[in-house]
């Protein structure tokens, strides 16, 4: 059985009730529907109330659900994570917003030492059904500390799930799933594509699995693997490669922890060639993990070395130079051609 979910999911929404929404609007709708469905879902974070969040992800929800369920917190990220743990252990389902991923670090102790461990250290007596949302990534000319992609730091922690959508439909379906999940989920939103495209999203949009990659394009010659905003450049590259005559498969990893290696292995065993594309730094990144797993389990199926197209191992450049850091479609095309020409 092919475990991947095809892109056709995007078209399977009943048209009469759906709306064309951007990703950030889809996030808003997912929060809205989750709150409507479950009284235990509460939102908290900085500026999420009357202001609706700095990206408007929570717009209108305070008016709809009240102050007790949409809480503007003091400016304290350690606290936001800490109270989420406290609330979750008592049966609420907090969905906390960290305003930018660059400010997630004060929350790390709570995530590592408590949220991720609570189920294990109490053998399931207390659990942490919480979601921590944060916009991440570069490309919007933001201030310093607002453009990093540090998903690998989070993916290294046992007990967490780390989810990174790349389309409005998947943002909706994965966020609904993240809120339903009985364990802590870090939900990283690629803000560069918050408003890049619109898709039909509605209450009937599928709630998606948190342990599956999504095959966005099927092909036989090379597998392109990406997640987050880099999926946009990856798809552009795939289309160009297709024009060159290559048959390209594209996988959106979507949930990087736990990693669905089954879908990735099935694809790479078929194509024998693989390029991994991510915006985060190269060394010790999620691409390294995927590459290592391919070496462990599919070495003899590989027809060429695994290529990685990533950010450099440098501090995320401030915005005048950030374009030199971000992977471009050309970089992906070159890497793909390199693997395709390897004999």
């Amino acid at each position, binding site marked *: 059985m092919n475990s991947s979910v095809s892109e056709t999911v995007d078209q399977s929404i009943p048209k009469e009730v759906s709306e064309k929404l951007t990703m950030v609007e889809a996030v808003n709708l997912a929060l809205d529907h989750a709150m409507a469905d479950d009284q235990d879902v509460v939102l908290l974070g900085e500026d999420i109330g009357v202001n609706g969040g700095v990206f408007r992800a929570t717009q209108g929800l305070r008016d709809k659900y009240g102050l007790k369920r949409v*809480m503007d917190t003091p400016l304290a990220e*350690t606290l936001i994570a800490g109270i989420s743990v406290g*609330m979750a252990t008592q049966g609420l389902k907090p969905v906390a917003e960290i305003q930018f991923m660059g400010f997630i670090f004060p929350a790390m102790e709570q995530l590592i030492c408590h949220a991720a461990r609570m189920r294990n250290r109490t053998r399931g007596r207390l659990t942490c059904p919480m979601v921590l949302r944060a916009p991440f990534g570069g490309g919007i000319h933001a201030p310093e500390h607002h453009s990093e992609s540090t998903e690998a730091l989070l993916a290294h922690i046992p007990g967490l799930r780390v989810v990174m959508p790349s389309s409005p439909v998947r943002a909706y379906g994965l966020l609904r799933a993240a809120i339903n999940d009985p364990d802590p989920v870090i939900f990283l939103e690629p803000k560069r594509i918050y408003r890049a495209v619109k898709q039909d999203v509605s209450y009937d949009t599928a709630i998606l699995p948190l342990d599956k990659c999504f095959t966005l394009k099927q092909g036989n010659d090379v597998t392109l693997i990406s997640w987050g905003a880099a999926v946009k450049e990856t798809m552009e590259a795939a289309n160009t490669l297709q024009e060159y005559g290559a048959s390209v498969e594209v996988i959106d990893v979507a949930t990087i922890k*736990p990693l669905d290696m089954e879908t990735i292995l099935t694809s790479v065993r078929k194509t024998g060639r693989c390029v991994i594309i991510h915006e985060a730094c190269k060394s010790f990144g999620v691409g390294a993990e995927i590459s290592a797993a391919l070496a462990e389990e599919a070495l003899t199926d590989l027809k060429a070395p695994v290529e990685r197209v990533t950010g450099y191992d440098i501090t995320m450049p401030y915005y005048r130079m950030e374009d030199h850091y971000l992977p471009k479609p050309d970089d992906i095309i070159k890497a793909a051609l390199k693997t395709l020409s390897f004999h």
Partner: protein
Amino acid sequence: MKAKEYCHIPYIRYLSDEGEALHRLPAWTENSDVLVDYYRSMVIARAGDAKAVALQRTGQMGTYPSALGQEAISTVCCSLLEKEDVLIPYYRDLPGLMKRGIPLSDVLLYWGGDERGSASEAWGKDFPNCVPIATQAGHAAGVATALKVRHQHQVAMVSMGDGATSKGDFTEALNLAGVWQLPIVFIINNNQWAISVPRKIQSGAPTLAQKGVSAGLTSIQVDGNDVIALHEAVNAAIKQARSGKGATVIEAITYRLGDHTTADDASRYRESEELQEAWGREPIKRLRNFLYQRGLWNEEKEQALQKEAAALIDKEVKRYLNTPLPEISDLFDHHYAQMPAQLEKQKQHAIAKAEAMNMGGVHS
């Protein structure tokens, strides 16, 4: 102006170091049952605590942080909580955990290196021991928020040491408790030492309680070795929290009569004179003197209690020592409600490896 002059923190004390009433006692002390229960609980807890240290010294348990000298705080706090209130303890709260009905064997199992010590139903919704300093303050704020959101009238009680008050987590939690009027009782066990760092170089604030003032909270100091003073302070704080009037910070002044943990040697940094002097203020002797003076306690009762404590501890220690190791799968089964495929593979590997080792086969 000096901090002392503009920030007055009340200090409550009823009993002298020798257990004599310093002034008129609250009416509830007429009911001897409460005081006798405090005494009995503290004696049993101290015996359990001593046994825990002994188990470590004899290689039957891992590192353990003794609560010696601090029994009054933990005991009184947890006696006054209702079962459905939520306790968020720190790691030096054995007396309170026992008061909450958590078997000593659970606590020994935990310090014996087994997570299942925090797993039994006896814990209810209480938090397990918190080892990272002050992080539990945020949990208490979250628990209290959940209670408030659901219009429940329980309270969250969180305890910590003096060192924890230096951390941002503590300040952030106090701040939230003030601004959201949360039902929390913050208990600072000021035992004068954070491992080797004495109170006087922990903070320039004249009291630790006054950190609550900056957050708009009721903030008091209490003699942490005086059960009557503690009862008054904690009872008022719980009532205030339960009636929706917000949190209280109680700085309970005590002294850590033991080492920081069994892995520590306080003689490296602490004068023996100071320790000897502190023994003169300890809570159990003080209450025993008081009870003797009131004719509520005698040698016969003391002997019976010691016997009772020994029997209980013996039973609990046996239960701890006889707890079999968990299955290998237990290491993996509680990370996610739904086991990820990659983790399942690792679990099978660990099981196979353990089986091979048991057969005297593969060693790694």
